[in-house]
């Protein structure tokens, strides 16, 4: 019986890893290609654009530099993502403290948007401390960032103690997410908004999902466009 359960566990793990690997190769072939392609593009233009003025050429060179920097930044982020939880230890963590840390990190954005963050009293749980901080940070950051225009973000963090795991909810009154994007938002570097409207690298929710999975939990979203979003995640009590 125990053996069977372990077998199933390995199978799920294997499936998760292979999905992650698939995503990884997609990123390398799509997202990392973009800046590299731009480097080729402008190098070729430099070679062939005989009519280009020296200002134009300087512009091309600055695009090449920017693109190289972008590629390097993406590789760094990819490493951060793949190293989550590696070589770290699970310890007892007071989530109240984590939440106040996160609020400090977000204080500028909270100040500018007048965001209101309300929370249940949060428990002390066993988890990876840095990862948990990152998880709460990216969920709260999103809740504030994707606010409706001319409205004050209202964010609620709630916690429920179930038999096998903790269940947390982070809900907001923001712009909401179209159902067709419920899966896309968790893919690394995937952004569902035009970049001029909302800043960000498209890493937050991908990291959040991986962090939750490191804690034998799951991360899901419920949302309605124009009404707000609710991110629900579970953390195992047997870590």
């Amino acid at each position, binding site marked *: 019986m125990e053996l069977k359960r372990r077998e199933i566990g390995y199978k799920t793990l294997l499936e998760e890893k292979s999905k992650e690997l698939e995503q990884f190769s997609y990123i390398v072939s799509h997202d990392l290609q*973009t800046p590299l*392609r731009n480097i080729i*593009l*402008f190098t070729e*233009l430099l070679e062939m654009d005989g*009519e280009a003025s020296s200002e134009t050429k300087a512009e091309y060179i600055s695009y090449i530099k920017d693109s190289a920097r972008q590629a390097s930044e993406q590789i760094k982020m990819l490493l951060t993502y793949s190293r989550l939880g590696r070589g770290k230890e699970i310890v007892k963590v007071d989530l109240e403290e984590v939440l106040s840390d996160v609020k400090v990190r977000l204080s500028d954005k909270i100040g500018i948007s007048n965001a209101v963050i309300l929370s249940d009293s949060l428990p002390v749980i066993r988890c990876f401390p840095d990862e948990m901080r990152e998880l709460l940070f990216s969920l709260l950051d999103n809740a504030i960032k994707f606010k409706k225009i001319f409205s004050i973000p209202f964010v609620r963090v709630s916690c429920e103690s179930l038999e096998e795991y903790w269940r947390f909810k982070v809900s907001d009154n923001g712009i909401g997410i179209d159902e067709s994007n419920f899966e896309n938002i968790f893919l690394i570097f995937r952004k569902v*908004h035009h970049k001029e409207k909302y800043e960000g690298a498209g890493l937050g929710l991908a990291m959040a999902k991986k962090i939750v999975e490191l804690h034998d939990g799951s991360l899901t979203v419920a949302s309605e466009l124009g009404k707000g979003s609710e991110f629900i995640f579970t953390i195992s009590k047997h870590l």
Partner: protein
Amino acid sequence: MKKLTKVVIVDDNPYSNIASKRVIQLSKTFDTIQTFEDPVLAFSYLQGLYERDIYSEIPDLILVDLNMPEMSGWDFIHTFELLPYESTKVTDIKILTGSDDDDDRRKASTLSRISDFITKPLNIEKIMTTLDRNQINKYSPI
């Protein structure tokens, strides 16, 4: 080759747009090159042209990227197809994408509105080849 009047490029990557625009300028194939980073904006601009029949501004060619946030190239093309064919038939549509995905290629070949699938980076040769291969003159206004 007959010089065409106008091409519209829809691609969310600004660098890609700058370079594509310059390459097309150097190829001397179009008089006007207009780029859009936001496909939604591009669509409403085009829709306005067709609906109000602003003939001089209607493009001969639209180059559209596939992987874009908010509105993918596929969404763009499907929405475009909802416009009355009578007014949009003068415009040829080609995909200009970084994806060299076989599935994307196959999908593109099933859509009659798409006349070619061009992979980035764009260069003069690619433009010449695609303009030669497609009888774009069939669509272009005389």
